[in-house]
């Protein structure tokens, strides 16, 4: 098979999910992001910390939109964010310039570490990247970034996923914990 033949793709795309799935995805995401954003606004930000980073938007897709996915399980959610945050902060401190290389190494090392620890969680890549590119406020956190927002935000989203997904009659979460 040539390179171009491979690029054409040959499989069927999966079917659309039902209306109930769409509704429960919406309900979970509204609740989960609302909780994290509220905590950011009323608790973390006044204390000079952060609870809200872009990668939680991506985590919401997995947790509330595809809760059966191996990528959405608690081990992956918590492990992926925490390890990627560690990698991201370490990359920024160890490799201050050039910025483009620091970004690339942070994301690539986060993926490699998540794979090796069976914690692959796509939003972890964003968590690692934001540790490098998040601006002065994120940089000032240092390794505290691993706890706020990475661990605390992941735990808040997890709590909502356990409630919202299991309130849905057609859903069950998690598939496994570890």
């Amino acid at each position, binding site marked *: 098979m040539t390179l171009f033949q491979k690029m054409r793709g*040959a*499989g*069927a*795309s*999966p*079917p659309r*999910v*039902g209306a*109930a*799935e769409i509704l429960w995805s919406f309900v979970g995401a509204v609740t989960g992001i609302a909780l994290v954003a509220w905590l950011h606004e009323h608790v973390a930000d006044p204390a000079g910390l952060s609870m809200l980073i872009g990668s939680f938007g991506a985590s919401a897709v997995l947790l509330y*939109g*595809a*809760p*059966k*996915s*191996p*990528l959405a399980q608690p081990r992956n959610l918590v492990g992926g964010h925490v390890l990627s945050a560690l990698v991201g902060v370490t990359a920024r401190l160890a490799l201050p310039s050039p910025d483009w290389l620091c970004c690339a190494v942070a994301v690539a090392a986060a993926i490699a570490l998540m794979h090796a620890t069976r914690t692959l969680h796509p939003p972890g890549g964003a968590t690692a990247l934001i540790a490098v590119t998040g601006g002065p406020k994120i940089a000032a956190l240092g390794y505290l970034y691993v706890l706020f927002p990475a661990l605390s935000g992941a735990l808040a989203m997890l709590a909502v996923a356990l409630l919202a997904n299991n309130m849905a009659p*057609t*859903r069950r979460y998690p598939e496994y914990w570890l």
Partner: protein
Amino acid sequence: MPTDNEAPARPDAMAVEDILAAMRRIDGYLDVSPADALALYRLAYAHAAQRLGRDVPVRDIMTATPATASPETTARDAARIMAAARVSGLPVVSGQTVVGVLSLTDLLRLLGLPADAGPAALIARLMTPAACTGAHPTPALGQTPVAALMTSPAVVVGPDVPRSEAARLMTGRGVNRLPVVDGTGLCGIVSRGDVVRSCRGVPGGCPA
């Protein structure tokens, strides 16, 4: 025996459209492409068929140390042995050598029932009042030695004979059990029930 339309689809017959239909049934978002799901199904099916369909030797499915009779055992004692062991046939051994097989049918013939009569024929006769006034099995009949009733020589198999070959032998020779004989003599017995039980869960039934 499942009919054709109940038999599980062979892996090659499964198509992407079946996977898509199954995905619609599950409804939640599945993190797998239909092509990957199909490939997974085919590989898993092949693995299960290999695991469950292996042709096992009768050694693995036989009943070891079965109840036996000797040629001198009386018909009455043989019937008691069968009843106690809850079996419908006994290998007849002289020392360790299998010299024949005694089945329930052989005992029924002793009672004057037709050669092909089964246990139900005996029940029917016992429940018919007129028959009870006629000839009863006398105690003397019960003294008949097994040697005079058994099927001899017995159809036997070795412990390494495959299950499929044992099934063919039982069907072809019209017997319900085969004594299993190794170098030292009788080591077990394999019945139709043993073959059926050992096939539980095999997709598409036993290998032909």
